């Protein structure tokens, strides 16, 4: 009963007989190599297409992250502007407090040595604190300004990142399209190759495997040379090799 592997096997034996009759074994090997290369190219092109799809997917995720970051940065910028307004009001308040302290000092001076002294002391202390507050506000305002300029740079970097991810997405789409084209071209090439050579990838693979086994057999026989009696070797190998020899001579196909 014919098994599922019989069809390629028959094709292989037919091919072997054909080669024996006409073409050289070298052509068979070349065809096998050609099919092998074709398969590698097909696999590589398919991998490229898959990688392009994965890149497009990653870029889309990255774009979403960049957009979220830009939103956060915008929020921080708005908050920073609010804080700047707050500091401005605080600085103004300290300036007013300083004026109050100056007026208290002036009033203390007007009251004279005794009663005005306490007012003068309060004025001095209040003015010193107001001055410290103003200085602190100024420093914080400067720091806030620096943060604002840093945020502007962050915005600009995010814009550049967004442009770059758009370009990468476009390139990935182009690569995907090109690999799809290449895959179609390789399928077309496979069809033409099959029509031209009469072989197919499965047969080519079977021939390559058979060649490999034959090489192994020859190597094994070479190792036996001189070690075992030739009669013993021939007796052992005859049942296996005779059908093969008959096959190569084109007499009949061996039993599966």
């Amino acid at each position, binding site marked *: 009963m014919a098994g599922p592997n019989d069809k390629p096997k028959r094709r292989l034996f037919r091919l072997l007989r054909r080669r024996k009759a006409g073409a050289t074994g070298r052509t068979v090997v070349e065809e096998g190599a050609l099919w092998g290369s074709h398969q590698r190219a097909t696999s590589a092109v398919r991998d490229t297409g898959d990688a392009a799809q994965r890149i497009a997917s990653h870029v889309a995720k990255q774009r979403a992250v960049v957009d979220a970051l830009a939103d956060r940065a915008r929020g921080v910028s708005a908050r920073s502007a609010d804080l700047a307004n707050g500091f401005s009001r605080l600085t103004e308040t300290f*300036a*007013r407090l300083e004026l109050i302290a*100056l007026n208290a000092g*002036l009033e203390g001076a007007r009251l004279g*040595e005794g009663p005005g002294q306490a007012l*003068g002391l309060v004025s001095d202390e209040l003015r010193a604190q107001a001055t410290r507050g103003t200085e602190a506000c100024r420093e914080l305002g400067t720091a806030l300004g620096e943060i604002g300029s840093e945020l502007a740079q962050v915005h600009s970097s995010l814009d550049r990142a967004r442009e770059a991810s758009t370009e990468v997405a476009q390139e990935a789409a182009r690569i995907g399209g090109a690999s799809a084209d290449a895959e179609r071209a390789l399928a077309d090439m496979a069809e033409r190759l099959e029509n031209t050579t009469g072989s197919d990838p499965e047969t080519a693979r079977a021939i390559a495997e058979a060649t490999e086994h034959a090489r192994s057999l020859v190597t094994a026989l070479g190792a036996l040379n001189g070690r075992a009696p030739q009669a013993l070797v021939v007796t052992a190998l005859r049942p296996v090799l005779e059908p093969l020899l008959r096959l190569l001579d084109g007499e009949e196909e061996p039993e599966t």
Partner: protein
Amino acid sequence: MSSGELATKPAAGGVVFRVGGELWFLPASIAMKVMPIPEMARVPGGPLELRGVALVDGDMIPVVDALAPGPEERAEPEAVLLEPRRQAMLVCAVLGETLGLVGIDVVATGRFEPGELAGEVKLGDETARTFDVAALIARVREGRWAV
């Protein structure tokens, strides 16, 4: 003046301010109060020292720039139209007239050790002379009015 004389001389109460790098003093009898510079209405044709008039405590008072150059220093009129450099105005009352003094940097108020000369006070290592408000008022009055 000897150190004994200085010790007996009473401290002078008032305000010390800086005008163009120089330290000046005004006694508490003249300096009324320090306040933020109010909104001013310019006086058309007025001299350069007169920055305008402002409403202070219900009274319309002239506001004078202490840093405005004198007639001999004026070069081009446009070059001396100065914006307020300081945010405080000193309200002064002299000769029955009240005016606001801008273009000053108030340094301190209170009682100050008297200087060696009359009308001088000491602030740290520096000495402040008494600012002549009356002279400034006279300069504004006698200044070139365009009307």
